[in-house]
C-alpha cells in the first residue's frame, strides 16, 4: 500500500478476541493503517456502502472478512461486495476464518474473494500467519474507488 494513510482496513469479525489478536499481530507487522472493526454483517455493510467516511464514498479500503457471523453469512457479504455494479467490487477482500472446508473455499473464490486464509488454532501459527498477512498488506496495491 503506497498511500498508507488513505487505505482503511475494515475488519468484519464477530469474535472480539479474534479481532484483538488479529489487530495486535497486524500492528506487529508494522501496519499502521486505521482499522474499523464490526462484529456483525448488517452494520458492516451499512458502513461499507453508506457511511460518509466509508470506503464506497470515501477512498480505497481493504476488507478482512470472517465467514461465521451472527446475523448473516460471510459469503453473503462477500457476494454483495463483489456483485456486478457494486462500487466496491474491486476492493480486495481477505477471508479470514476458521473454516477449512474445501467447498467453502471454492465458493469464496468463485464469489470473487482475493485471499482465503484459515485461522490456525495453534497461536504460534496464528500469530505468524497474521504477521505474514500484515507484510503482504504492506506491499499490495489497492485500486481507487470509482464513484
Amino acid at each position, binding site marked *: 500500500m503506497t498511500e498508507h494513510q488513505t487505505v482503511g482496513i475494515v475488519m468484519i469479525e464477530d*469474535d472480539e*478476541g*479474534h479481532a484483538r*489478536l488479529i489487530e495486535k499481530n497486524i500492528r506487529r507487522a508494522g501496519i499502521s493503517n486505521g482499522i474499523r472493526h464490526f462484529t456483525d454483517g448488517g452494520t458492516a455493510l451499512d458502513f461499507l456502502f453508506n457511511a460518509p467516511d466509508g470506503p464506497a464514498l470515501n477512498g480505497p479500503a481493504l476488507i478482512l472478512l470472517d465467514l461465521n457471523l451472527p446475523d448473516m453469512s460471510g459469503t453473503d457479504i462477500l457476494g454483495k461486495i463483489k456483485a456486478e455494479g457494486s462500487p466496491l467490487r474491486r476492493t480486495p477482500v481477505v477471508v479470514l476464518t*476458521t473454516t477449512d472446508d474445501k467447498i467453502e473455499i471454492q465458493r469464496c473464490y468463485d464469489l470473487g474473494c482475493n485471499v482465503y486464509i484459515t485461522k490456525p*488454532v*495453534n497461536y504460534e501459527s496464528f*500469530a505468524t500467519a497474521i504477521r505474514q498477512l500484515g507484510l503482504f498488506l504492506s506491499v499490495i496495491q489497492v485500486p481507487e474507488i470509482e464513484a
Partner: protein
Amino acid sequence: MPETRVKLTTNNRPIGRVLLACMVLGFASLIAAGFAAAWLTGQNQEHTRWVNHTYEVELAIAQASIAIEQGETPRRGYLITRSPIYLATYRANRAKQPEILARVARLTADNPAQRANYAKLTMLVADLQRQRDLTVSLVEQGRGREAIAEFFTETGARRMNKIRAVARQMADAERRLLTIRDADQTRSLRAFYIVLGIAGLILLFVAVLSVMTVMRYTRDLTRSRDSLNTLNETLEEQVIERTKDLSLANDEIQRFAYIVSHDLRSPLVNVMGFTAELAATVTPLEELLARAEEIAPDIVTEEARLAVREDLPEAVGFIRTSTQKMDRLINAILKLSREGRRVITPEPLDIAELVGTIKGSMQHIIDERGASVSVAGTIPTLTSDRLAIEQILSNLIENATKYLKPGRPGVITVTGVEERGRVLLSVADNGRGIDIRDHSRVFDLFRRSGTQDQPGEGIGLAHVRALAYRLGGTIDVASELGEGATFRLNLPKILTTQDLKA
C-alpha cells in the same frame, strides 16, 4: 415412509390336518373295501361251486334214472326175440349201472337225507336187477316160457314206479337245495356289488379329497411364493430407503461434528492466543522484577516475586496443556468428520500385501514392543477403499502391539474368510484383553479400557468403527481379560459406489 410387511400364510394348518386325516381315513376304508370284496368273491365262488354241485347231482340222478329205464328195453327185446343183440345191449347197460349209481353215491355223500334215499334206491334197483337177471338167464337157458311166465308174475311195473318216485324225490331234494343255494349265491353277489359300490364311493371321496388337498397345498405354495416375490421385490426398495435414511442421519452427524468442532475451535483460538500473550507479558515483568531487586530491593514483596516467578508461569502452563488437549480432541472430531466426507474409491485389494506394507511402516514399533505380526492362511481378495482399509488395519495392529500382556511376547495374526458375499477379517492378539463390559465402549470416541498406562486419546477405535461403517461394514471384538483380543471386521466383498451415499 411406506412400510411393506408381508406375512407368510401359516394360519390354515388345522384345516390341512383335518384334510390329511380324512385322506388317511379314506385310504384305510378303501383298503378295507378291497379286503371285503376279495372275501366276498371267495364266498361267491364257494356258492357257485355248491350250485354247480347241485346241478351235477341232478344230472347224476337223471343219468341213473335213464340207465335204469334203458335196462328194461333190451331185456324185453331179448325176452321176446331172444336175439343176442338185445342180450349184449342188456349186458352193456347193466355193466354201466354200478358206476353211474356210485357217482350218485359219491356226490350225495355229504347229505344224510339223500343217503337214505340212495340206500332205498339201491335196494330197489338191486331187487329189480335180480328179477331182470333171472328172466334173462331163463331165456339163455332156453326156458323162454318160464321166463315169460316169470315176467308176467313179476311186479316190475310197480317196482319201476317206486324207483322213479325215489329218483324224483332225490331230484326234488336237490332242486330245493338248488333254490337255497341260488338264493345264497344271489345274496353274496348282491353283497359283493354293494361293497363294490361303497368302495367306488370311497374311491370317489378320496379322489375328491386328494384333489382338494393338492389344490389347497398348491394354492398355499403359490401364495407363499407370491408373498416371497413381493417381499423380494420390496426388499431392495426397503434397503435403499433405509440406506438413504441412514446416510441422511450420517450426513447430519457429520455436519454436526463439523459445526461443533469449528464453533469450539473459535473460542479456543482466543484462549490459546491470549494465553500466549499472557505468557509473553511474563518476560518484561520478570525483567522489571530483576531490575527492581537490583535497584530497590525494598519495594519487592515476596508476594510479587511469587506471582511473577511461580503463579503466573504455572497458571499459563496449565492453561496451555489443557487447551492443547482440547485442541487435540477437537481435531480428532474434525478428522472423523472429515473422514466421513472423503470420497471412497473401491479397488481390488490384496490384504496380505497391505498387511505387509503396514508391518513395514511400523516395524520399529513392533520390534520395540517385542511383537510379531503375521498373516495366517490365504485372505480372499476384497474390493474396497485402500486408504480406509489401511487405516483400519494399521490402527488395529498398532493397538495390538500397544496393549500386550507384560512378560508375554506379542503374537498378532491377521486372518480372513469369505462368507456369502462378505469378507470377515480378523486381527487377533495374545495381549492383555478387554473386559467384556467394555466391548462396545472401546469403540466410542474418547473412551478407553483397562489400565491407562499408554498414551492416547481414545480415538483410534472410534475412527476404525467410523471407517468400517463407511465401507458398509461392521466391527466387533471378542476378548476376555488377560486372554488376548480378536477384532472382527465384516466387510462387503465388493464395495460398489451404490453402497455409498450419493
